């Protein structure tokens, strides 16, 4: 088992009591203003017929809980439910408790579109927390734009998109990639890179940005190989041999899903010891969640570049990790996307309260500039382009399945979904 042994189980303690304690702690962090529903008559704060009553407001959760993507999306669902429970414990939004309707996208993009439409048209949900893959987001995007829904999308993704109906709580590609490459070039003196990915838009676009940055901005660095394997591919011995032949300083890996497990296990079995950093493995697709499947001992020594690691030491994060484990079990781990999903309901709450209304147009208008000082990753702010300002960090994978944070950008990185010079 790769479970963290450092955290002591709360055995013997009443779960409810712990939960209440945890929420109270978080509640104090989130500086609640107790808003009374009576101060906000339903007719005034909901002029477009959303599912808002005098006591409740309904939102949607739309993730895959069956099919191949359920592996990744489960954490997001859990984080969103945790955030909703915590918000409700504080008195809800504008005095109304959040209720949710959960739908299963089934890892199938047309199903995502169908369910999104059901949530917006039939259930009239006030907002939706959901989607994980780019393909599912692309499938629901026209639905959200047509019916003026509001989606909080948690995954780090390829950018090249900015919809008035989506808030992107994960990082877009340049935020995630550039700081990591600069770090590996400066701190580790990396000169040659082998780019590797699963064959779809996010790895391809990310590698495109990485290649431009390596070739144009890193002194004397070059890309010695770039390669893609079908999603679900399980045999990586050939590419490992090619990597041996090219002897790159860095393997830049954006492999996803079940392929991830196969890739790292085979890399280790082939005698490439990642702790020796020759070549150094830098990934942007392996969070703590994926390491559970890979096994910490098989990826020890690799570096990951993203905005959040479970091991971050700040009060917000410690409270978040604690309540997450209380709600979902001590053996849970939290990855970057899970944390980003957790931000969704909180960002929405902040925007609704700023707007004083659930109307999507008013919430949208209120959204840019929203700040969360209470985010587990630290301080975040919503940019005019609907992405978040956030710090980028580099973590070193340890055998226990956690990352040691070895680097973090000094300032928040500005989101730039349409980067000049990288297209």
């Amino acid at each position: 088992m790769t479970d963290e042994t450092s955290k002591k189980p709360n055995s013997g303690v009443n779960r409810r009591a712990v939960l209440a304690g945890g929420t109270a702690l978080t509640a104090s962090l989130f500086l609640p203003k107790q808003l009374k529903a009576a101060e906000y008559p339903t007719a005034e704060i909901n002029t477009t017929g959303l599912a808002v009553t005098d006591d409740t407001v309904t939102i949607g959760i739309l993730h895959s809980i069956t099919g191949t993507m359920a592996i990744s999306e489960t954490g997001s669902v859990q984080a969103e439910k945790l955030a909703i429970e915590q918000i409700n414990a504080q008195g809800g939004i504008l005095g109304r408790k959040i209720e949710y309707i959960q739908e299963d996208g089934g890892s199938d993009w047309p199903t995502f579109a169908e369910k999104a439409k059901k949530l917006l048209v039939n259930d009239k949900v006030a907002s939706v927390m959901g989607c994980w893959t780019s393909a599912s987001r692309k499938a629901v995007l026209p639905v959200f734009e047509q019916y003026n829904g509001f989606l909080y999308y948690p995954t780090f993704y390829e950018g090249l998109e900015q919809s008035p109906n989506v808030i992107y709580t994960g990082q877009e590609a340049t935020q995630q990639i550039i700081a990591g490459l600069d770090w590996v070039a400066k701190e580790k003196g990396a000169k040659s890179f082998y780019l590797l990915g699963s064959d779809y838009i996010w790895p391809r676009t990310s590698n495109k940005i990485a290649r431009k940055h390596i070739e144009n901005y890193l002194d004397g660095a070059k890309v010695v190989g770039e390669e893609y394997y079908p999603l679900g591919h399980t045999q990586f011995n050939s590419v490992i041999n090619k990597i041996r032949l090219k002897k790159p300083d860095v393997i830049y890996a954006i492999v996803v899903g079940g392929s991830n497990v196969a890739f790292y296990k085979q890399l280790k079995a082939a005698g490439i010891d990642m702790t020796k950093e020759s070549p150094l493995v830098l990934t942007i697709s392996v969070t703590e969640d994926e390491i559970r499947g890979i096994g910490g001992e098989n990826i020890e020594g690799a570096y990951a570049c993203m905005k959040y690691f479970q091991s971050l030491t700040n009060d917000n994060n410690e409270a978040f990790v604690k309540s997450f484990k209380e709600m979902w079990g001590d053996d849970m781990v939290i990855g970057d996307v899970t944390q980003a999903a957790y931000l969704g309901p909180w960002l929405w709450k902040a925007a609704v309260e700023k707007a004083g209304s659930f109307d999507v147009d008013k919430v949208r208008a209120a959204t840019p500039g929203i700040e969360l000082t209470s985010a587990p990753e630290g301080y975040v702010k919503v940019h005019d382009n609907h992405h978040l300002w956030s710090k980028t960090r580099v973590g070193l994978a340890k055998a226990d399945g956690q990352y040691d944070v070895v680097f973090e950008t000094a300032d928040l990185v500005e989101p730039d979904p349409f980067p000049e010079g990288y297209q």
Partner: protein
Amino acid sequence: MKANALFTRSEMIGFAILACVIFLLLPAVLDTFRLNLFGKYLTYSFVAIGLALCWGAGGILSLGQGVFFGLGGYCMAMFLKLEASTPENTAIQSTPGIPDFMDWNQLTALPWWWEPFHSLTFALFAVVAVPVVFAFIIGVAMFRRRVGGVYFAIITQAFAAILTILIIGQQGFTGGVNGITDLRTLLGWDIRTDEAKETLYYVNGILLFAVLFAAQFVRRSKLGRLLIAMRDQEDRVRFSGYDVASFKIFIFCLGAGFAGIGGAMFTLQVGFMSPTLVGIVPSIEMVIFCAVGGRLSILGAVYGALLVNWAKTTFSESFPELWLFGLGGLFIAVVMAFPNGLAGIWVEKIEPRLLKAFKKSPAPASPAQQSTPAE
């Protein structure tokens, strides 16, 4: 009952009931959202009808119908995508005027084989022609060499796998995993509005009946009887001097053409096309629609597609954590207990009783009672 008429009396009643269900009952009881969903389900029934002919009548089980469904859908999607990618709409791109996913993949000009899809006529032609040509190539290679049964099923499955990997791998030309998304208008007519969805539902229904009539015609023709003879005793038909392979190729191409139309209607109603509809899983599901409906019956195929998809939606909305149990159980139950599917239940259990009741009391059975197979 005349032997050569297009319909027997009970088939005539069956067609009439289905027409009532599709054109009267469903629009009356469903809101636009649900009606649109049923429109989507109906596009699968095009495939299921083709399968009822190939598999039920001809004994050819194809596990690659998703390929033809997908090809038809992609042809339609290419036209719609080009229409949506006007230079004004795509001004933000580095190369305005080409589809967005091409721009993301550093293509700077439209590939030559996309060019003809600027024309709706060509696209509509391609919706049927591309699947048929593809089926013809496969059919000639397979049936001329007398490949059949399980081998054929698995080879077609391999085609589904290949095409999926190819579409995903060539994302600069095809949109990759995402598929071709964000389709908006057909010759300036916004296909996303509720009115358009309703219109498309009826267009879909009319096309479905055209396909049903064609299928019925084939079944009642000499060709249909030969197909059944071939399914049961292929060698005897061959020894009687018939060119077995040609008949098989024809019916396989016909099924592919039907699937292509279904795919195009899917694209229009759902608003995008993606490789998840091409692969092995959807192809097997399409066979299951046909099996649930009763593989011998073209009407059963339509009900089968409606029932399975409706069950899928309902199960997954009510029991999102458990719905696969229900769906898996349904497949097993149909195969084990009702090998002839809904059509079998109708013919064996319901129709005889109705006829008995009909003979006792001359009052005609109301359509509401008879439409039970749809539920």
